[in-house]
């Protein structure tokens, strides 16, 4: 922390006014259960649609302090795994009206591998933009005959954490063309729209000023490849759209709701900015 602050100060003197991007240089290899290791890509060349904006994309992991980064190196230390475990219990339990369980149709959660890496995506049948939560909700309401889970409630986020974990280490690769294009354009428009009394857009912090400090917070590129993430501040799991709520609220605006068309489109656009980074399953951030 101190070192980073000093680095900033030194750079500021050297390049006054220049945009600074100073994520740490570090590599993330996660020690999973049973001695397996997973290499995580935390920096990658920017996808083509960002060519005018930035050269390299960085996971938010590289913007956090040493202690926070270390928590993610070992699954045992990662508090998010508690929620993944809980998601697994939920996956295997017969919670449906007719005694259905997730495992009944889908077998093990590993059948969900790859889903997190390509969502949000447009469903070929319905033409709707689907996040992982939308898929969970479809199963819960249509196949299990239950009421929708609260979008940011425990059940939804436990399941989201479990499903996201199955794609850990895979490269984010959301489609932005074809049927997804109109959603992506809408998301892009939202990203660059200034909201709230402070009149800030997503780009104000995460594009124009990433790498700098906003008070004590080190501004990242706002990548969501690590989501859902265990947030130390909340001592709980946070979904990407929940984070959007926090960001928009901080601009002193009335926020959109999780699962609103706006946030779904924004999630697609922000996810596409991370095409090439690894899904981190359940990351740890502060």
């Amino acid at each position, binding site marked *: 922390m101190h070192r980073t602050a000093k680095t900033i100060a030194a750079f500021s003197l050297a390049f006054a006014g220049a945009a600074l991007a100073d994520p740490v240089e570090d590599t993330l290899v996660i020690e999973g259960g049973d001695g397996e290791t997973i290499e995580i890509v935390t920096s990658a060349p920017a996808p083509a649609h960002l060519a005018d904006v930035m050269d390299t994309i960085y996971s938010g992991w590289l913007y956090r302090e040493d202690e926070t980064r270390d928590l993610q190196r070992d699954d*045992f*230390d990662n*508090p998010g795994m*508690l*929620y993944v*475990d*809980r998601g697994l219990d939920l996956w295997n339990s017969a919670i449906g009206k007719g005694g259905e369980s997730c495992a009944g149709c889908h077998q093990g959660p590993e059948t969900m591998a790859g889903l997190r890496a390509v969502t949000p995506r447009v469903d070929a049948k319905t033409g709707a933009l689907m996040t992982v939560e939308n898929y969970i909700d479809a199963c819960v309401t249509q196949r299990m005959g239950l009421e929708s889970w609260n979008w940011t409630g425990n059940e939804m986020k436990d399941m989201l954490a479990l499903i996201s974990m199955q794609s850990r280490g895979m490269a984010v690769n959301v489609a932005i063309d074809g049927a997804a294009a109109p959603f992506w354009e809408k998301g892009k428009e939202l990203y660059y729209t200034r909201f709230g009394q402070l009149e800030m857009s997503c780009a104000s912090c995460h594009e124009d000023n990433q790498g700098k400090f906003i008070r004590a917070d080190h501004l990242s590129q706002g990548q969501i490849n690590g989501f859902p993430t265990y947030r130390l501040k909340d*001592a*709980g799991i946070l979904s990407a759209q929940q984070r959007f709520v926090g960001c928009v609220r901080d601009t002193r605006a009335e926020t959109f709701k999780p699962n609103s068309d706006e946030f779904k489109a924004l999630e697609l656009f922000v996810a596409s900015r991370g095409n090439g980074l690894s899904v981190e399953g359940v990351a740890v951030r502060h």
Partner: protein
Amino acid sequence: MVEEVKPRVKVPKSAAAGEIVTIKALISHTMESGQRKGSDGNLIPRKIINRFTCDLNGVNVIDVAIDPAVSTNPYFEFDAKVDAAGDFKFTWYDDDGSIYEDVKPINIG
């Protein structure tokens, strides 16, 4: 917060005789401090893990008294010298009288 209490421990599968190994123990627990007020304005009663112990083959390795300032999901990491194969026994004591236990074997070799 994770409401259900679930202990997790990480112990190496084997060690050389006399080796010092690192042990990690985590339990999901709200650790309600007893200082907070609920939405009805009344104090939420204290409910924390107040003691944690680890024994190796019946010999105590660590015995921790825990107070309300310890945060949710308490995590302990400590070293233990392993002279012979056996079982690590972990015990967490809850304010409500519940006792949570976990056992992990370790081999010499």
